[in-house]
């Protein structure tokens, strides 16, 4: 588990990164996060949706409803230009933090 503060800070770049690859819906986003982090990022699933809503309100993502083959309503999110700019800015910040940690902390696990 990761700390609440780190979780709050990391959610936005992670979601934006996922949407960078194309539009996706909430349930799938969660599964991809879990998959990518090997279960390390354990989100309470429902908590994703208020975050998505906030990102949409801030203009970083947009959404549309699609009816799937099974007749299930799904809300698909895609990243906006503002979102891309925001992600880039975030990445600069995260890169800085990550670089500093790599230099200073010998215990940082290697990334494959």
């Amino acid at each position, binding site marked *: 588990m990761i700390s609440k503060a780190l979780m709050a800070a990391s959610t936005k770049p992670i979601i934006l990164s996922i949407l960078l690859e194309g539009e996706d819906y909430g349930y799938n986003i969660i599964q991809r996060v879990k998959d990518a982090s090997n279960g390390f990022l354990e989100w309470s*699933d429902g908590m994703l949706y*208020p*975050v998505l809503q906030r990102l949409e309100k801030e203009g970083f993502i947009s959404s549309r409803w699609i009816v799937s083959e099974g007749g299930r309503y799904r809300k698909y999110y895609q990243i906006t230009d503002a979102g891309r700019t925001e992600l880039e800015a975030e990445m600069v910040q995260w890169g800085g933090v990550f670089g500093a940690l790599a230099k200073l902390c010998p215990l940082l696990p290697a990334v494959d």
Partner: protein
Amino acid sequence: MFDIEKAVREWRRGLRKLESFEDGFVAELESHLRDEFDRQKEKGSSDASAFAKAVSLVGRPESIAEEYYKTNAGPLAASPSWTKSRFSPALIGNYLKVALRTIRRHKGYSFINIAGLALGMACSILIIFYIQHELSYDRFHANADRIFRVAVDGMLGGQSINGAVTPNPLAPALSSRYPEVVAAARFYKRDAMSVKFADREFMESGIVYADPAIFDVFTFPMIRGNVKAALERSRTVVLTESTAKKYFGTEDPIGKFLKFNNQSDYAVTGVIRDVPQNSHLKLSLICSMETFFARNPVLRDNWFNEGNSYTYIRLDRPETRKPLEAKLADLMEEKFGKLLRAAKGRLQFRLQPLTAIHLHSHLQWEFGANSDILYIYIFAAIAAVILAIACVNFMNLATARSARRAREVGLRKVVGAGRRDLMGQFLGESTSTSLLALAVALVFVKLALPLFKSISGIELALGVGQLSWLIPVFFGLVLFVGLAAGIYPAVYLSAIRPVKALKGGPEAGSGNARFRRILVVGQFVLSIAMISGTRIIEDQIRFMKNRDLGFQKDQILAINTSDQTILKNLEQVKSRFKEIPGILEVSATSHVPGQTPNNNIVTPEGLETAMKCCFIRADADYVRTMGMEIVKGRNFSKDMISDGKNAILINETAVRKLAWQDPIGKTMKVGGAGPLQFSSKTVVGVVRDFNYSSLRNSIEPFYIDNDMSSLDVLAVKIKADQAGRIVGELKKAWKTISPDKLFDFFFVDELFDAQYRSEERLNTIFSSFSLMAIAIACLGLFGLASYMAERRKKEVGIRKVLGASIGEVVGLLSAQFLKLVGLAALIAWPIAYLGMSIWLRGFAYRTPISPWTFVFSGLAALAIAFLTVSYQAVRAASANPVDSLKYE
């Protein structure tokens, strides 16, 4: 079967309660939930567990809603309304003010609320008192948990024996043989007799013989005299404080002599505190057991014969009871083994805890009439029912009037009150009302105590002594009533939507009319069931009193006498009595019906085993005096000297039991249980079956012995309507026959009917409480009706303008309530029928349940409900429509 759609629907409903969830959010979360559900099912979970897992993965709706709330409300918002109660102490003052204002502004409703609750609480408090009193029986003894009474049970001669009395030598045997028996004491109950000191003479009933050890077993604090020596010697007597006062006033009674039955003098050797009311041993004069044995030396060491006493023991520890009972089996074997094997019977000693006697013991030859734990349950149920009816009133009126408070709720919500705050406010209000009601209830209780005493025979006092248990009880009662009565209105009122309430659209109170109707029906179901129950109890009592008992209990006067000279000159006494006009028959007997007959072991001819049989002794006039009927053979005859030695009459049940084709001339060995006093009796006649005791019991084998020794009752059959004069003349005659004996008489029908005292008491209590129940229910109905009438004022006005008559309007307004009462009757009838059938099963002879009972209870409830409602209806209907329609 697990229904996924239903489960999702419910889950969705849970989300909707939280206002942050907009429809889109809910749809999105639901789609997520379904995806997760599908995945869990692919993994192999069952529907139910897949759903449960999916729900838990989605997370707590509250946390999600809170996130949405933060996102939407911006940084300035306080936390959402459901997360924490913003209870503000500053508001308490306002709550109180509003509560008082509501009470003051709506005096009528407040009166109904408080009076209804107070009545309900007063009933419950009285019943709690009563139950507490019953449960406290015999607990005042310091060693109450270690005191036991020895009882006997088993089978003998095909009949079960459950006796409260045991052989006289048992107590000394117990204390000498078993170290765990700390003390053992006997009581022997004496008949009522006259006691005299100087010119003060009274009939006394609580007279016993007792061992000195009663002071080691029980806690009877002695205030005068020496505990060790008080009951050592023959002809000593210990008095209770109030008995001593009755005879000696302020004089010191110690060393003075009391004259019993104008014959024997007893020296007063001690005075004890009055035995508390909650003691199953009712004592006023305790004579030494030694007196009894000095007079009947043969009974001192006799294990077999009559003259059994009550044996009480105190053990070292309560746990030694079971092991001791096992050891007593050996004692039984030693003393009775041979006899029991011969009679193919079995008997065992049982130890009854002292504190269980009053409510749980129903043996033969009990010391006095015990109560029954069943009555405790019945009364507890009545208390709960009445309290429930009172609480329902409160709920009903509060929800009915919710429209009036909808605006207040709306406004409070607009300025930030959450549901919890409002619920707290309303529950606080109902609890305060209930506190107020308690105060009123206590006044009611205080006023009702004398009435309560006359009904239950129990004297209660609201004293400091009871505060230790009363305060928690009252506190609990207030809290319980406050919460029970307030919870529905609180939930209902706090859910009012501010928009609707403030807009003043259709009134918010109208939606819960159905709930109110259900409550009214519930109240009347309980009331009608109680009325029906009362009627059935009355029917049964009337049935028992009027049933053909096989003898005529009316117009028989019985005179107690132990004067042997009267028996010696019986014929002269009889002819002296018969000189008095109006006296039809006179008979000497050992018992009249209603008095517990003797018991004996008999061995009838042709039967190997002994059987138990009740019997009385009587002269030849008994059958005629009692109006009994000889169905076979003949009555006793004065001219046959042999009759007085060995003739008996048996009842039809005995004939049936023995399967005798021709009972006349058959013989029975009587009293042959022990080595003493065998005698052979010959059946000379058969009497028609008669009920010797309460109709709770079926008729048992019975015989009447013509043995003329120890007859101590003179039964006198008199002409109807002349009782007063005849008693006066009998008294005069008595003075000449037995100048120094008290003329102590009673009427047989009164004695016989006194057996039904517990039923009558139940009836009184049931009827008074069912009256209360219906009164409280009507109080609520009255409130509802007046509210309805007010709400429909304009409608009534318009109807009248359009030509409706007063009668039509009254019918319209009353019909809705009467329908409810009718429905309640339909539900109440089967409940009452079932309940009362169970009660009636306790009687060997019972009245059929009449359908009229139910018709009556239903009509009575309808009539009372109509009277209640019609007052309001008539008022509304006769109002001038101009007034109600003026301001539109």
